[in-house]
């Protein structure tokens, strides 16, 4: 049984409407940020969630933790339905599910000391108070590579990489099993990014953690994930073991995403696909397959019929009408 099982999760936001719009009876606009997403994360694995900005990957991460209340769908964590928990039960559950945020500057309260920031979950969950809490906080701080002498400093006294370590310490202090890592290294310079990635992998190994790792960086995802899910406009278009998805991408979006990444060193073995145009607005997503407006392989049926998810191999799935034809954009461009 998976540690986390998400079924048909949707997250819609109601658009704002002016009085005139309301009186004139226009239907309210709805942003479908996440639409019918199903995924599972096994204990001890890293599921990499990849997609471009605005595809709904962060919203999905937050909806799973119920930081946003999902519109529809079910989230099972260790066999209990997170979406149905009462507020006190949800609070207790949050001790086991934590999140690390993208922006190490915006996600730490500038008026609190590190001891207060990292120690807050201990107080909230009634784990420890006073000196005991300070002792645990100091240990966690040392564990993430900071010094316990820095406990009484404020976030502005730290660099970006150190702040991200504080964010990691805060997520770790309640001893969780599952952490949503929401672009934790995107705001960092390359050399610092590598330090944080190494730290996250080390912690996972030592503490037996499970991650949902959200990123737009394919290199990062490819390096640290066991399985990968690719998101486009609120839907998962392809998912599977990292090797299968990266070496043998089947969905045209995954193929073009991979081929857009600049490579270092080795000459590109496969051709390059250029996607035309921009991501369509999630306010008014295309009908049928959401990717058809940019897809070089689109055929008339893609404009009207939503493709179903097909299984292609061991845990490898994709949703595209033309999978059976074995077409690859990468071949065509070679």
């Amino acid at each position, binding site marked *: 049984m998976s540690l986390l099982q998400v079924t048909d999760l949707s997250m819609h936001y109601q658009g704002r409407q002016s009085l005139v719009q309301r009186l004139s009876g226009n239907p309210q606009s709805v942003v479908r940020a996440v639409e019918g997403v199903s995924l599972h994360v096994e204990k001890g694995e890293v599921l990499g969630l990849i997609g471009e900005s605005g595809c709904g990957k962060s919203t999905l991460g937050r909806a799973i933790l119920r930081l946003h209340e999902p519109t529809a769908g079910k989230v099972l964590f260790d066999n209990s339905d997170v979406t149905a928990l009462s507020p006190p039960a949800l609070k207790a559950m949050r001790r086991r599910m934590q999140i690390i945020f993208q922006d190490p500057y915006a996600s730490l309260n500038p008026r609190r000391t590190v001891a207060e920031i990292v120690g807050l979950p201990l107080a909230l969950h009634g784990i420890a108070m006073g000196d005991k809490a300070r002792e645990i906080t100091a240990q966690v701080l040392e564990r993430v590579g900071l010094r316990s002498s820095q406990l009484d400093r404020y976030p502005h006294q730290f660099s970006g990489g150190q702040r991200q370590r504080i964010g990691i310490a805060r997520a770790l202090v309640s001893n969780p099993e599952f952490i949503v890592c929401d672009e934790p290294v995107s705001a960092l310079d*390359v050399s610092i990014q590598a330090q944080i990635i190494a730290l996250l992998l080390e912690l996972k190994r030592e503490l037996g953690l499970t991650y949902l790792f959200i990123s737009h960086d394919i290199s990062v995802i490819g390096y*640290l994930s066991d399985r990968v899910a690719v998101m486009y406009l609120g839907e998962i278009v392809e998912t599977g073991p990292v090797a299968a998805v990266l070496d043998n991408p089947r969905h045209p979006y995954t193929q073009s995403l991979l081929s857009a990444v600049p490579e270092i060193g080795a000459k590109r073995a496969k051709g390059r696909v250029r996607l035309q145009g921009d991501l369509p607005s999630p306010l008014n997503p295309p009908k049928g397959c959401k990717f058809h407006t940019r897809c070089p392989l689109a055929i008339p049926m893609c404009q009207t019929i939503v493709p179903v998810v097909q299984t292609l191999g061991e845990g490898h799935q994709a949703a595209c009408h033309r999978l059976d034809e074995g077409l690859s954009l990468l071949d065509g461009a070679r």
Partner: protein
Amino acid sequence: MTLLLEVTNLCTEFNTRAGLVRAVDGVSLRVSRGECLGVVGESGSGKSVTFASVMGLVRSPGRITHGMIFFDGRELRDMSPDEMRATRGRDIAMTMQDALTALNPALTVGEQLSEVLIAHDETLPAGRAARRVAIRDKCVEMLGLVGIPSPQSRLAQYPHEFSGGMRQRIMIAIALACRPKLLIADEPTTALDVTIQAQVLELISDIRARLGMAVVLITHDLGVVAEHCDRVMVMYAGQVVEEGPTEQVITQPRHPYTRGLLASIPRPAMRGQPLTPINGQVPDLVGLPPQCRFQSRCPMARPECLVEVPMFDAGPDRRARCLRLEDMP
């Protein structure tokens, strides 16, 4: 190839409350006509300030303390403000990282493009009506060149009506309006998604080939450099630490920082193998002692590294700032 831009021993300092910061410390570089130079470095390495200095865009409390900047045979630092203004935008143009803040939100895209043409384009006809038509035609042509669909109708739109990738294209169109000899692109794709990044970079390469213009591509992404630049210059804490032909620098780096940077990039092919990050962090630029700036993080550092290190020749057309150059595996 003839030399277009030559910077020698450029120093730019900022007088801050914390003390004097030498953001650019003795940078020398050359760009030939039609060449693409990649400038790589992490935040605070001085890469943007170097080229803001070249453009004469450094403002108080910053100032260029010494160095020479020759562009197309002329010393830019000797130019009067009027001459500099005439050169900037016409012969050298720069695009900024964040297109949304660089573009004026209160002017239409057409107005912003016209500004450049009115300021610099001497080929415009004299008559008022003819002039207006000519400017409009050129604006449409430039938007078309950077791949904006239906340019006629989009000229009347404001920056906020465009997507991030489109705004970056508009900024490139403005920069290219007078067909400059040199385009300085400061992190042109950092704020963009990878599929859009690929479109914009391809556009720059394509226009470069068509107009025969030289490009300086400032970026923190070695992958971008590897695919688009002839030569690369790596900066660290205000200094150039290594330069040379891109492929050689990437396959055989001669400075420990370049090596560390390359080893820090996670790659799917390295799954399961440990990453080797560079330990520590960039030193504070205030009151730096005259010694190798990387030694505190360098796995190869030795006591003798605590001296000021000059650039050494490291093979044909290659230089690196390291005393242990010869010991590099």
